[in-house]
């Protein structure tokens, strides 16, 4: 899922302080799951903003709504119903949601309420770790399912590097060396020989090459 974090409230307030009616828009997708922008967080932010407005002596009201997703035009179709007299929207979705709202409703002032951090997994209560960089050229079939692009600070395609010591990463000793883990796992799977083959250079054009990436499936489009 896409991991997000609530922006400092001062930054959120800075964007909306001059409006009188603001909609805080939550997302029950990734943002809701990682406790940044679900129903509960919408309720808390609405309450906090109303309190701040009172402290600042502003004629301001924040309202809250949560959509099942903000990264889908179908889910965003209902948005105009919530916008009566609303002057701005604070989206608690990831950056995708904010972008799509801005694309679909060009006249609406939409501001991000979160910072989008990475694509990751929930690995323990309140802990998320990056597992994928969405590079567009996946080769984790060769690395026992562990991605060195996302999990090795050097992004080495053929590792480990010379600095890896005592199974830890030399760049960040807090994390294990993912190449050490790859080798141990391949050995257990009897697939260590697959590393005899050098993994060739990646096609980074799929990541950075031609601006925003687009995928169109012919079998689903008309």
């Amino acid at each position: 899922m896409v991991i997000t974090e609530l922006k400092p409230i001062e930054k959120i307030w800075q964007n909306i302080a001059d409006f009188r009616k603001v909609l805080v828009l939550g997302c029950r997708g990734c943002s809701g799951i990682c406790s940044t922008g679900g129903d509960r967080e919408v309720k808390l932010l609405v309450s906090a903003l109303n309190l701040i407005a009172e402290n600042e002596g502003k004629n301001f009201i924040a309202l809250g709504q949560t959509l099942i997703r903000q990264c889908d035009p179908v889910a965003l179709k209902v948005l105009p119903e919530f916008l009566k007299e609303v002057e701005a929207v604070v989206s608690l979705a990831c950056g995708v949601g904010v972008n799509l709202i801005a694309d679909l409703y060009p006249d609406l002032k939409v501001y991000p309420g979160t910072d989008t951090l990475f694509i990751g997994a929930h690995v323990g209560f309140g802990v998320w770790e990056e597992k994928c960089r969405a590079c567009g050229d996946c080769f984790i079939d060769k690395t026992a399912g562990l991605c060195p692009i996302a999990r090795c600070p050097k992004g080495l395609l053929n590792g480990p590097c010379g600095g890896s010591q005592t199974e830890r990463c030399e760049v960040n000793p807090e994390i294990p060396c993912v190449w050490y883990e790859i080798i141990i796992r391949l050995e257990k799977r009897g697939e260590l020989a697959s590393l005899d083959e050098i993994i060739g250079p990646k096609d980074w054009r799929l990541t950075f090459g031609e601006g925003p990436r687009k995928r169109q499936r012919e079998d689903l489009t008309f």
Partner: protein
Amino acid sequence: MKGKTLMFVCRELGSEDGIKDREDIVLKTLDCAGDLTVFEVLKALEEGFQQVFVVGCKKGTCKSRIGNLRAEKRMATVRRYLGKWAEGYRLEMVYLNKEKGQTLLDQILKA
């Protein structure tokens, strides 16, 4: 204490002595301090309370093991949601032992 005060107190700490007669203090008893929600505290501030105390059992003595620690984290979340505006309120987590001979209020104010 200035303004209205709301005290969320763990049931284990018992008595309302010294509090129930004070018009400026509202007491809410929780089965455990860990039952406190962030929203309840924000709502209380919206309703005009200037001070919110959460009173839990001393660390290591919570019957729910970490209810008191959960309450402390929730108070930290309240502060995070309010940012610099939290400074305008008194938001306190207090850890107490049930002590004989002292009213709950005396203990809270002393802590």
